[in-house]
């Protein structure tokens, strides 16, 4: 950003630096608010359809344009021309505010996403906390939509959404605290700088928790209970049609991209890679390419998960969050903190190895505990069956 500002001032010598900064900010904000949603939605709905189709042995979209590439645009036109329906008994103001809040809340997260060396809207020193905090708007939008629709399925779904989001926000925050602990900062730039070895390798437990929690926060399969068609029609946005539905949809895909982008930033080293640097335009572009490749890879993983796993039952979903991810996360947090204070791990390499070992120990311990608990509950259940037979 600073580089572009100085380039602008050198191009137009009469321009004052604050004005140039303002222009750069406005342009970047416009890109994030208008270009990014279109590109993200069109690209990733297409990718998702193709990937899922491949997994399910189908062809996927192939009518609109060559290879079905224009499918996303066709959908956009359809959404824009659909009639807008407001159900009777709806609370009109709240009903109309909810979709806007959902999409704006998601776009706000992009402000601190470093997409390339030096390209970040605002490198806040509370960066990652800002992400978590802004995430609350999505929850609010769901509650507002569910409440105002005057539909019991929408309302039930809103309850479920919140229950699910809060169950997975805590593990996610714990994973983030682990990253902050290792990086010593909440600022995105410094978190990337700290990853001479990507945190994926030193904090695999945190990555696993973060990845699962991200899928759940976006509400994608197998955690898509909020729109379980067979149970609660289609979720809190069941009554929405036309562009208002499209706004929820855009919000979901924007959330998908930013979730994967944050995973990249926190665990895969962000835009880092050979040749990426802030100094030259080529370096910046390379950094952007690295960022995109890593992010798309994570998104592909999420699609793969979606194509492979069946939907989880709600009690299992909540149990997995509260009774597995949270304790494991707390355990890993304490273990990592312990390793970082061990006196004989003086060099950074030793610390990385130590963190990795601590993570592996946590994995072993928690898996043992789970298998022990499972065996016990199974034997209790068997005893119960035997009891009824007798």
């Amino acid at each position, binding site marked *: 950003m600073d580089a572009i500002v100085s380039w602008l001032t050198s191009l137009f010598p009469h321009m004052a630096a604050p004005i140039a900064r303002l222009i750069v900010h406005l342009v970047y904000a416009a890109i994030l608010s208008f270009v990014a949603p279109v590109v993200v939605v069109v690209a990733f709905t297409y990718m998702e359809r193709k990937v899922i189709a491949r997994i399910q042995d189908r062809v996927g979209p192939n009518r609109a344009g060559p290879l079905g590439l224009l499918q996303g645009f066709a959908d956009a036109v359809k959404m*824009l021309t659909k009639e807008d*329906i407001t*159900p009777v*008994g709806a609370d009109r103001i709240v009903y109309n505010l909810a979709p806007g809040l959902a999409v704006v809340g998601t776009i706000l997260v992009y402000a601190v996403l470093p997409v390339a060396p030096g390209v970040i809207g605002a490198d806040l020193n509370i960066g990652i*906390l800002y992400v978590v905090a802004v995430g609350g708007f999505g929850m609010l939008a769901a509650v507002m939509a569910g409440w105002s629709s005057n539909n019991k399925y929408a309302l039930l779904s809103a*309850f479920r959404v919140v229950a699910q989001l809060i169950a997975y926000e805590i593990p996610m925050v714990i994973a983030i605290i682990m990253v902050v602990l290792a990086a010593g900062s909440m600022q995105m730039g410094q978190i990337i700088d700290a990853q001479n070895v990507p945190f994926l390798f030193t904090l695999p437990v945190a990555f696993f928790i973060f990845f699962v929690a991200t899928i759940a926060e976006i509400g994608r399969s197998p955690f898509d209970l909020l729109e379980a068609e067979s149970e609660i029609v289609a979720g809190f946005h069941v009554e929405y049609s036309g562009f208002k539905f499209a706004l929820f949809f855009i919000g979901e895909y924007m959330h998908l991209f930013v979730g994967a982008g944050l995973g990249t930033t926190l665990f895969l080293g962000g835009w880092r890679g050979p040749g990426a640097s802030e100094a030259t335009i080529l370096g910046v572009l390379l950094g952007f390419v690295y960022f995109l490749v890593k992010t798309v890879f994570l998104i592909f993983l999420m699609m793969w998960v979606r194509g492979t796993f069946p939907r989880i039952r709600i009690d299992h979903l909540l149990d997995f969050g509260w009774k597995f991810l949270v*304790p494991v996360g*707390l355990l890993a947090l304490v273990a990592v903190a312990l390793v970082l204070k061990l006196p004989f791990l003086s060099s950074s390499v030793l610390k990385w190895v130590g963190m990795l070992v601590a993570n592996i120990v946590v994995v072993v311990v928690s898996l043992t505990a789970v298998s022990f608990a499972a065996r016990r509950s199974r034997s209790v259940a068997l005893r119960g069956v035997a009891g009824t037979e007798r």
Partner: protein
Amino acid sequence: MLSDFTFVGILVLIAVLLPVVGLGLSWLIRPKKPNPVKQSTYECGIETIGDTWVQFRAQYYIYALVFVVFDIEAVFLLPWAVAYDQLPLYALTEAVIFVLILALALVYAWRKGALRWS
């Protein structure tokens, strides 16, 4: 500090335009032919029975409770994590005690069946 947040402010102002412009555009080109059937509550074609406000379970509230407690824990642990490098050894024990007390809260809720979806 404040200048860091100017971009966030600008982004809010611009991002709000997305729903506004989109809804305006679709308002111009979409059909408007409301009728009572279309506007009735959607339940897959079945007539709605009873009030929307069927009684919900207090279980949801208990999950929210546990969430609030752990959210605040995060607020306290984040500054700790940032400063951890510069803190002496007792920071570890203090934080462990802190986490343990909260783990106790989780254990309590768990044992009391507050986290059971029955």
